[in-house]
């Protein structure tokens, strides 16, 4: 372990001591400045709404919620429609059979309470099944006749049964308890039902938009049914939208109508507000009029976490690439909408929309922007600080080095951190102070010493020849000068090369030249071997 630490320490020192090139340091410095500049650019772009916007994320979340909601609403509406059409078929058949049996038309039922009670009993049976299977908050059916044509408003009073759930306290009611909202009290007594606090014997068709047109044989929708926009059930606290299905005999005589209610409380429980980072996401369905969402005629899911009220119209005041801005009485909302394929009364078009309070959304966007800008700002500051540090740590020593050079202080001792500067200083030093004799590099001195020692091993005859070389003679000149044959010279040359540990005349010449250049040639002079005094030392 200790060894490992020592090794690591050594490596660290090596790394720290390693000379870094000026080029690399400059690169790092410039890189920091470039990154800082990029950071500032990104900061500016973010500030003016650049590429890191939160809007696409918000739109994506809304779209996801909208599609889920749309599927759910469509499915629920289809289910209600299916049950209502089924109910209308059953009631059409029952009432028609009843009328055939009695040999009557619908209008003959007026002022016949006992017959109308029988029809109400048939209705109750079908309605009770429908409310339990269809899981709606209320179902109704009315026949186009009244128990008493003599009372005021008899033209709007129609005999029928309207069953409602006592409590809509949850979205799934396994065993719903029902209450009689409209209908003969006999129906309630027979079936153990309570009367609604605002019970009436008959249904008033005034609130059933389009019913009078149906009575008059007009206004039947292409689909054969239609949804009536939100209305308050008179004298109650509850609001509903109604699906109304007209009923006819085989011969086309108008029998009455039936349908299902979609209760505002039920809708609110069925579509809870979804908490998101951007605020509560609220679902609404509403008729669309001149591009405005008529929430006062539609329904809102749970509005928890928002100030959205039910009795307002939402107008689109702005649209961007991602979503629209809706204005209500109290607040603005961001949202998106999709057309809902349900037939409305008088051709009304419906849409399903999801809304997020603008306030909370804007807060999220700003928070998001502030967070991104904070991170970028931090990055920029770090880069600037790094560049400043680099300049301080690396540029200042350079300047110091220059100053030292200018001041003529000793350089070239390895104190510079940059290889280039050190090299420069060495070069300058070499130029200014040529190397002195004896100031040989250690390896060169050793080489010289060894060569001089080898020279001492030469015999006198061999040294005699060697001296001619020292004095600048060529091989060809030596036999004449030394009065020996060429073969003798060659023989001595061989011995000289071997003893001096060289391999050629060129190498010998190089050594001699080096000795001369270093003013060390006298180291090769041997006094006792001076029998060649006749040799000219300067050729």
């Amino acid at each position, binding site marked *: 372990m200790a060894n490992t630490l020592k090794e690591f320490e050594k490596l660290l020192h090596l790394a720290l001591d390693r000379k870094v090139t000026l080029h690399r340091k400059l690169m790092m410095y410039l890189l920091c400045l470039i990154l800082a500049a990029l950071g500032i650019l990104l900061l500016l772009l973010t500030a003016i709404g650049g590429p890191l916007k939160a809007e696409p994320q918000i739109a994506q979340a809304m779209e996801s919620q909208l599609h889920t909601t749309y599927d759910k609403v469509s499915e629920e509406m289809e289910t209600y429609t299916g049950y209502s059409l089924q109910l209308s078929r059953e009631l059409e058949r029952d009432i028609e059979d009843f009328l055939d049996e009695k040999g009557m038309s619908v209008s003959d039922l007026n002022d016949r*309470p006992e017959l109308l009670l029988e029809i109400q009993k048939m209705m109750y049976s079908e309605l009770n099944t429908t409310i339990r299977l269809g899981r709606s908050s209320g179902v109704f059916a009315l026949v186009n006749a*009244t*128990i*008493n044509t003599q*009372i005021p408003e008899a033209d709007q*009073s129609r005999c029928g049964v309207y069953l409602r759930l*006592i*409590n*809509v*306290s*949850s*979205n*799934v*009611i*396994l065993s719903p*308890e029902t*209450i009689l909202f409209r209908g*003969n*009290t006999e129906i*309630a*007594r027979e079936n*153990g039902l*309570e*009367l*609604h*606090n*605002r*019970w*009436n*014997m*008959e249904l008033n068709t005034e609130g059933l938009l389009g019913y009078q047109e149906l009575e008059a044989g007009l206004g039947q929708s292409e689909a054969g049914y239609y949804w009536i926009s939100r209305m308050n059930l008179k*004298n*109650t*606290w*509850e609001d509903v939208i109604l699906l109304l299905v007209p009923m006819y005999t085989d011969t086309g005589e108008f029998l009455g109508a039936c349908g299902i209610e979609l209760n505002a*409380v039920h809708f*609110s*429980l069925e579509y809870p507000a979804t908490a998101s980072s951007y*605020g*509560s996401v609220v679902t609404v369905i509403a008729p669309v009029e001149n591009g405005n969402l008529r929430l006062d005629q539609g329904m809102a899911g*749970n*509005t*928890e*976490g*928002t*100030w959205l009220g039910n009795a307002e119209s939402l107008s689109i005041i702005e649209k961007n690439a991602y979503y629209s801005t809706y204005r209500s009485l109290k607040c603005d909302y961001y949202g998106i909408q999709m057309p809902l394929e349900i037939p409305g009364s008088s051709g009304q078009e419906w849409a399903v929309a999801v809304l997020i*309070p603008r*306030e*909370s959304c*804007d*807060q999220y966007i*700003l*928070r998001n*922007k*502030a967070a991104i*800008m*904070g991170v970028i*700002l931090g990055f920029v*500051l770090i880069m600037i600080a790094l560049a*400043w540090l680099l300049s301080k740590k690396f540029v200042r020593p350079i300047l110091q080095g220059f100053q030292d050079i200018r001041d003529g202080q000793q350089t070239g001792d390895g104190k510079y951190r940059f290889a280039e500067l050190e090299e420069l200083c060495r070069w300058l030093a070499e130029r200014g102070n040529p190397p002195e004799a004896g100031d040989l590099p250690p390896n060169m001195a050793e080489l010289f010493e060894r060569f001089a020692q080898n020279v001492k091993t030469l015999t006198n005859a061999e040294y005699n020849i060697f001296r001619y070389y020292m004095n600048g003679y060529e091989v060809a000149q030596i036999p004449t000068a030394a009065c020996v044959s060429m073969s003798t010279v060659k023989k001595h040359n061989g011995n000289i090369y071997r003893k001096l540990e060289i391999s050629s005349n060129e190498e010998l010449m190089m050594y001699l030249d080096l000795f001369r250049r270093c003013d060390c040639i006298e180291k090769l002079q041997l006094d006792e071997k001076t029998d060649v005094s006749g040799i000219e030392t300067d050729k």
Partner: protein
Amino acid sequence: MRKRKPWIYIIGILVLTGLVMLTACGVSGGKKEPVTLTVWHVYGGQTDSPLNDLIEEFNETVGAEEGIKIQVTVVSNTNNIHDAVLRAANDEPGTNGLPDMFISYPKTVLAMPDPEILVDYRDYFSDEELSAYIPAFLEEGEIDGRLVVFPVAKSTEIMFIDKTLFDRFTADTGAALEQLDTWEGLFELSKEYYQWTDAQTPEVPGDGKAFFVHDYHFNYFQVGVESLGEDFLRGNGIAYGKAFSKVWKPYADAAVQGGVWLQEGYATEPLRTGETIVSVASSASVLYYEDIVTYSDNRSEPIEVIARSVPCFENGERLVMQRGAGFCTVKSTPEKERAAAIFLKWLTEPETNVRFVTSVGYMPVTDAAFEVLSDFIENLEDPKYRSLYEAFLETQSSYEFYTAPQFAGYLELEQTFEKNVRSKLRAACSSWQEGEEDVERLMVEALENVKASLPK
């Protein structure tokens, strides 16, 4: 070269950081999303609830300032809310869980699997604040030493009379309203009324109408027996003592002979259809009496409804049932619990409380509110409400209030007795209408059947 000072850079960095911080501060300074509380209550039943209007007012004013939004999801009656609360508290399939606040009697809380899930209001109300409330109302809401049912309005039982139809009866028979001061007198009139109405259509025998309907027959027996100086309950069951017989006889006599309404449902129903003309019910039911009666041929007739104190027994104490549920708050976050307390404090401020209670037929819950109540009564425009509050004040001054005991099996006993006493007497009445003349025997048999149907 001029040397730059490093503090210039430091100031620059600080300014930039400050700008970012200021942006963040600006972000958090906006209008907060509201704390939303869901509420189930009983003030209005299925009608257009006056409390909903007050809640709307709260949302617009204090709620808007404090960031609180109250959202009403159920308005029903205490029985339905009782069932819904217990289903939700027991996590039964199909329930969406409890709301943040709901109206409940202590009996509902006792029947919950874990009353500890409810907020103890002492955590949010100081002793000084609580001292403003009538102590008996607070005590009623205490369970195991925790204040979990908070009083916002209290009711009592009141007698309502369809004076329009009663006057017709009086005109023919000489019956007087004063006969309704005692139960004995009321039940005598009941039998007489049946005969009188039966005689209206001589061609249809046996179509007489009931005179009287009681919302809770169980209360009649309980308060009646107690008013005669005996305990109604023995252990967790009914003590069938002498006083019980004295209470049973006039009631059963009239019931068997068609004078008492014995169908299921609330007392308001037969009054609305003219099938009875006198009822005893919670003062709160004033909201459900309409000023018209609708007959079986769909004719409607305007009527005058008046209120009187409930009858008492000759030689009996003047005793009347005190009722009135309170608000329970389900434990959640401190913000929501605090919001619930703010709402309840607002609702029980004297002026708000009196406005609230006088719109729904209740009594206020603080002494300060009682002080301003009489001024409000004088200004009530609806004669039905004015009559009610006159009867209220009469009851307050001359009656003792009786509060039902609290024990786990109370609700079951009440519901079983209520259902059986109606059905057994209904059967006896049918026998009488079919020709059985021995009323005494029918009464005895009915009582035996009732006793047999109750848990031992």
